[in-house]
């Protein structure tokens, strides 16, 4: 789960990391009011994406009037495919230097990793490797003072700024652990006179740790309505923009099914992993979601392992008989009792195959024809 910038900054300030003075505005009037309070401001579109500046999502306003105009332009607009619903209006701070600081997960090393650079303010991907400091964190130890001293030394900081930076590193790790984060990023971390200030925040939280989120943790719904509906019934679903709806059992299988559709020149409408042991109830609900996206065809790819193919076929027959299916369905059934399954489906007029190659080809053919 990604947090909006302003949410991340709320967490920072609660844990003693300085941020610029500012507030969230949901309309132009609020933006103007905040600007009246703060003086010169920066108005930042709150969307869950980086590169907002280049895309025109960040504006500087010198007066409440200017702020009102910019806010009006930004709010409700689409930026990088995302609708701007809130703005963060912050006092413009003096920027002497910009650092980059983050703690992320390194899946391959199975450890958190601290990444820092004296070249902050741009995407870390664009910073030359020799200007990037990477230090893995032993999860059994965490971050101790010496770890911070070393990072700060390599950043070239000394004196009071070094002390502040070391302190911020400790706090970033605290936040990273406390909120089950996958990423906590401050970019840029700004030297403003004698202070270090987090001028941006990016926090990604591990969705599945929800049961132990600290009280007051903000919750952001990144899923579309349909994705949420699928998620609520335990199905992994991602909306795409093609016209062939897909159901498969297993995430790898579902991904491969999309790849095969593309191979045959088709365009998938979605990713759907309906899980291993789909019973007829779950199958019906999954089908319902697929039908609601109005695809040209539905391609189902089932490798029957522990689930028997004849049972899967019966579930489909039941759905077809009870609620009807207006859109063409192509099913691939393979594995345990595949022949029986294919026979059952034949009776109710559903095309079925025992290999995905033929089934996918057929589905693409239907999509193109329709």
């Amino acid at each position, binding site marked *: 789960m990604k947090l909006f910038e302003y949410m991340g900054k709320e967490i920072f300030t609660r844990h003693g990391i300085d941020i610029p003075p500012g507030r969230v505005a949901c309309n132009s009037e609020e933006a103007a009011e905040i600007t009246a309070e703060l003086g010169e401001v920066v108005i930042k579109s709150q969307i869950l994406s980086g590169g907002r500046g280049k895309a025109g999502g960040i504006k500087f306003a010198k007066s409440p009037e200017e702020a009102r105009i910019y806010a009006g332009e930004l709010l409700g607009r689409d930026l990088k495919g995302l609708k701007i619903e809130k703005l963060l209006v912050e006092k413009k701070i003096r920027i002497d230097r910009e650092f980059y600081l983050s703690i992320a*997960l390194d*899946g*391959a090393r*199975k*450890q*958190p990793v601290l990444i820092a650079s004296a070249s902050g303010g741009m995407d870390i*991907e664009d910073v030359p490797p020799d200007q990037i400091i990477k230090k893995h964190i*032993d*999860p*059994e130890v965490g971050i101790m003072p010496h770890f911070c001293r070393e990072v700060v030394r390599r950043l070239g900081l000394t004196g009071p700024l070094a002390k502040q930076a070391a302190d911020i590193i400790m706090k970033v790790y605290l936040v990273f*652990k406390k909120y*089950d984060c*996958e990423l906590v990023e401050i970019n840029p971390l700004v030297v403003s006179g004698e202070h270090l200030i987090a001028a941006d925040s990016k926090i990604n939280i*591990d969705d*599945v*740790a929800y*049961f*132990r989120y600290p009280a007051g943790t903000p919750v952001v719904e990144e899923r579309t309505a349909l994705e949420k509906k699928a998620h609520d019934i335990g199905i*992994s679903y*991602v909306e*795409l923009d093609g016209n062939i709806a897909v159901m*498969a*059992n*297993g*995430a*790898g*299988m*579902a*991904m*491969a099914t*999309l*790849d*095969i*559709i*593309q*191979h045959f020149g088709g365009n*998938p409408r979605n*990713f759907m*992993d309906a899980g*291993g042991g789909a019973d007829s109830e779950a199958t019906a609900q999954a089908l319902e979601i697929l039908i609601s996206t109005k695809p040209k065809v539905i391609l189902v790819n089932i*490798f*029957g*392992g*522990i689930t028997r193919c004849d049972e899967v076929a019966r579930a489909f027959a039941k759905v077809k008989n009870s609620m009807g299916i207006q859109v063409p369905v192509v099913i691939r059934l*393979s*594995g*345990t009792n595949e022949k029986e399954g294919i026979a059952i489906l034949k009776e109710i007029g559903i095309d079925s195959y025992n*290999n*995905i*190659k033929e089934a996918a080809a057929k589905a693409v053919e239907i999509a193109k024809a329709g």
Partner: protein
Amino acid sequence: MAIIIDENTKVLVQGITGNQGQFHTRQMLEYGTKIVGGVSPGKGGQEVHGVPVFDTVAAALEKTDIDATIFFVPARMVKDAAFENMENGIKTIVIITEHVPVHDAIDIMAYARDKGVTIVGPNTFGLISPGKCKIGIMPNRIYKPGNVGIVARSGTLSYEIANSLSIEGIGQSTVVGLGGDRVVGLSFVDVLRRFEDDPETEGVILVGEIGGNAEEVAAEYIKQMTKPVVAFLAGRSAPPGKRMGHAGAIIERGTGTYRGKVTALEAAGAIVAELPWEVPDLLRKAMESRSGTRKVI
């Protein structure tokens, strides 16, 4: 021969009294796995399909040796159970459970490394040495003993591939599921190295997917392997920034792309199948050509 588990492996089932635990205990027993006990706190003294249930791992160890434990416990209890098994000296742990918090996985893996414990998963289908031992949730019927090793991040996709191999008469030495999460115990390299060292394994199939850099790291090791490796990767058509079912299957900040993985694997000498049904044939050809030019170490 096989890797990690064989016909003598004694298995404990953690969470044996739950639905999943009961169902798969039965499946594993039917496959011939030596299940010596189960653990379910507060249920000690019961039996599940004739398998004795204990309150704690230590209680089970008072009655039997244990080589490996398979987990069917809720995600939020996985860390506690993992440490219980590790602190009690269990050396192989297979975590079927999905949705384990990644910070818990990190803690588990750090301790496992200290104690020399092999962790398979989380979010794995398990592992199987066909005809000898199955510790997992894969179907019993699709495998056949043989000399091909399979290592996969994804379950059903690997079932499909194993099945197609079996149908074509190509058996498997061991099939290992790494798990679909961002942080898992065994890596491709860990398993490839074992296959390379296993006299019974003559060819290897790697079933990968987008996200992370596990395949790229694997490619580095494949360069020095003497046995042929055929890879199939899922997610060629996946859009960046979307999690494709598995927590680990996501292209982020330009890393974890299909193209990057294929390039790395091919540069390392692996053969990458574009479509899953091409795998058996590519493997057979690779093994035939390799057996003529086998490197001698």
